[in-house]
């Protein structure tokens, strides 16, 4: 049985042939077979990268999700060592009942450890803890022409830095060791309130980020005129007391891709207006379970199918702090004018903890993430306009989410790309990399 694999956004639509590695010892032989048959390949985890960074140039990927074994769990000191295909959700299932949590988690628990390293993911506590790399102890890297090596800040440090955020190009990450953080409860004390404009967002962010570990904002990107920049701010901390409960894994499935996108200007306008109005106008304190707080979208399995066969593109940029306010306003104006908006519109202030990864995405400033249903208008008009604003502001786009940025923008924004290219395994290349280094 062989199922074809796709990127999360299903754009570009390029079904990948998966070649599974069931055991760590399978990685070498399976990879050699692929080199002989197709020249190059790319490691593939759980398919949560949005654009083409998880698609192999040869369309034949090394599937590492079957490497889902734990290697060692040290519950005294809160350290976990596991094979690269283990997902963050699988770690939480073991860690939470024992009073531990991930130091850094992205907005979905369905990413693999290998993917979390290769994209150097970040979360709602970036302003406090930086990226996933901060919780990394070491990992195993397998190159096509070398013996497998261990990489850490002190052992093979150059491979460590190249592989973090290295988009799976330096080699195959076979196992990862991370540090966890202690929790007293699986509940989150959260605070929510809506805001009316971008200035209010920055004021709230400055105030709340200093006092809370986690913070994020949703923004109504369709609002025009006076309402522009309105949204809802959420902050939270782990509760000091309470139960240690793992969330039930059940979620609502989307059984199939609809022929057309169910997310369109009409449904979006309806959703955005009601969602904003439902948010509390003043600070509203509530204790919630960790899963709706960190992973609201995981409640709907395969929510990407709502965007229909043509799929969607995520636009995620980070803008330097000094120009963030002006550039954000400009971005929102362009988006509102285009009328094509996004359910998920996430605003987050990034802190100044630097990641060791050469191609790590965050920088001190503000990050904005938006999902757009794919159509020709998007690629022809809106995205180039948004790219220009980001370029002018000196910001950059997130390769893990990207399916469109130009090569020159990429090389400008990530000057370390040449170092990474020099250390890339010649037997690994993605469609993304082929697109941006030319």
């Amino acid at each position, binding site marked *: *049985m*062989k*199922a074809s694999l796709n990127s999360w956004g299903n754009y570009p639509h390029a079904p990948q042939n998966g070649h*599974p590695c*069931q*055991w*760590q*010892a399978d990685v070498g032989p399976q990879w050699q077979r692929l080199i002989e048959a197709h020249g190059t390949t790319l490691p593939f985890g759980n398919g949560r990268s949005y654009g083409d960074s998880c698609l192999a140039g040869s369309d034949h990927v090394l599937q590492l999700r079957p490497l889902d*074994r*734990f*290697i*060692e*769990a040290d519950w005294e000191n809160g350290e*976990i060592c*596991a094979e690269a295909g283990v997902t963050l959700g699988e770690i939480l299932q*073991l860690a939470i009942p024992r009073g531990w949590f991930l130091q850094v988690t992205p907005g979905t628990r369905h990413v693999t450890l290998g993917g979390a390293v290769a994209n150097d993911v970040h979360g709602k506590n970036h302003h406090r803890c930086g990226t996933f790399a901060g919780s990394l102890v070491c990992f195993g890297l397998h190159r096509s022409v070398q013996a497998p090596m261990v990489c850490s800040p002190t052992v093979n440090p150059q491979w460590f830095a190249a592989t973090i955020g290295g988009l799976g190009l330096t080699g195959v990450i076979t196992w990862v060791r991370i540090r966890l953080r202690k929790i007293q409860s699986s509940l989150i004390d959260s605070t929510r309130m809506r805001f009316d404009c971008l200035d209010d967002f920055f004021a709230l962010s400055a105030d709340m980020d200093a006092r809370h570990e986690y913070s994020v904002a949703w923004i109504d990107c369709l609002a025009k005129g006076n309402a522009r920049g309105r949204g809802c701010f959420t902050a939270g901390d782990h509760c000091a007391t309470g139960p240690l409960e793992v969330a039930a894994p059940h979620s609502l499935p989307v059984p199939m891709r609809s022929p057309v996108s169910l997310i369109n200007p009409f449904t979006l306008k309806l959703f955005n207006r009601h969602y904003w109005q439902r948010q509390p106008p003043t600070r509203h304190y509530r204790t919630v379970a960790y899963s709706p707080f960190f992973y609201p979208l995981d409640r709907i399995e395969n929510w990407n199918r709502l965007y229909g066969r043509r799929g969607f593109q995520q636009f995620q940029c980070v803008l330097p702090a000094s120009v963030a306010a002006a550039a954000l306003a400009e971005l929102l104006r362009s988006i509102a004018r285009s009328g094509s908006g996004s359910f998920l519109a996430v605003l987050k202030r990034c802190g100044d903890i630097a990641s060791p990864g050469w191609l790590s995405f965050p920088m001190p400033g503000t990050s904005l993430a938006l999902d757009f249903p794919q159509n020709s208008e998007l690629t022809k008009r809106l995205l180039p306009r948004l790219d220009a604003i980001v370029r002018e502001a000196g910001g950059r786009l997130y390769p893990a989410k990207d399916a469109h940025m130009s090569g020159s923008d990429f090389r400008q924004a990530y000057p370390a790309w040449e170092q990474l290219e020099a250390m890339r395994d010649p037997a690994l290349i993605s469609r993304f990399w082929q697109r941006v280094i030319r």
Partner: protein
Amino acid sequence: MKKILIVGATSAIACACARLWAVERSELFLVARDAQKLQQTCADLQARGARAVTAYVMDAIDIAAHSLMYEQCLATLQTVDICLVAYGSLPDQRACEHSVEQAMEQFTNNGSSMIALLTLLANRMAVQQRGTLAVISSVAGDRGRPSNYLYGAAKAAVSTFCEGLRARLFKSGVHVITIKPGFVDTPMTRGLALPALLVTQPDAVARRIVAGIDRQIAVLYVPGFWRVIMWMIMAIPQPLFKRLNL
């Protein structure tokens, strides 16, 4: 907490069952022929919460090795609540048609070696007068289909053997469960052109097996809809069946 012996412990279905038992803080004695895979499986189950995990390397077709293995298992676990017999291989049907050697080798792998092991396990468990013998057979054993009848014949032998054993051991308080998985997404079935709708993930299969063992089911189809599918396939009359290429 249960005390469990698994033979064929690195198979995908066995691993998935063992993970569920590990979470219940069970004590596991794992038997497989590949030492490295077995060691990795042990480490995984240990981290997932198993009270204790012991690895034992043995090739199940080496019938002479069975009894020493069980002695070691009993010395470690003291008593056995569940024996899961889960090893096997999927033969290349075409190759078996042309080579008597391959056909006999595959029949030994999936059939006669299992009967040998079950004979030993049955006698030992009858002594302790309790416990469950869980055996992974297959829906393939329900009917001899041209595409896969050597494997089917071996599994039919195992299923029939288990049925008799169940009736015999019932009197001594030991339960025998025959597990008949349909298409499961495992390394064994990779490369086969299976209809995607009928393919199940090992962890879903494992949940049903572990629950079926607790409920002392006699014959367990996994997933349950395979009982219906196999009922329909069994109902096809010979004159039609021999003309089909199932």
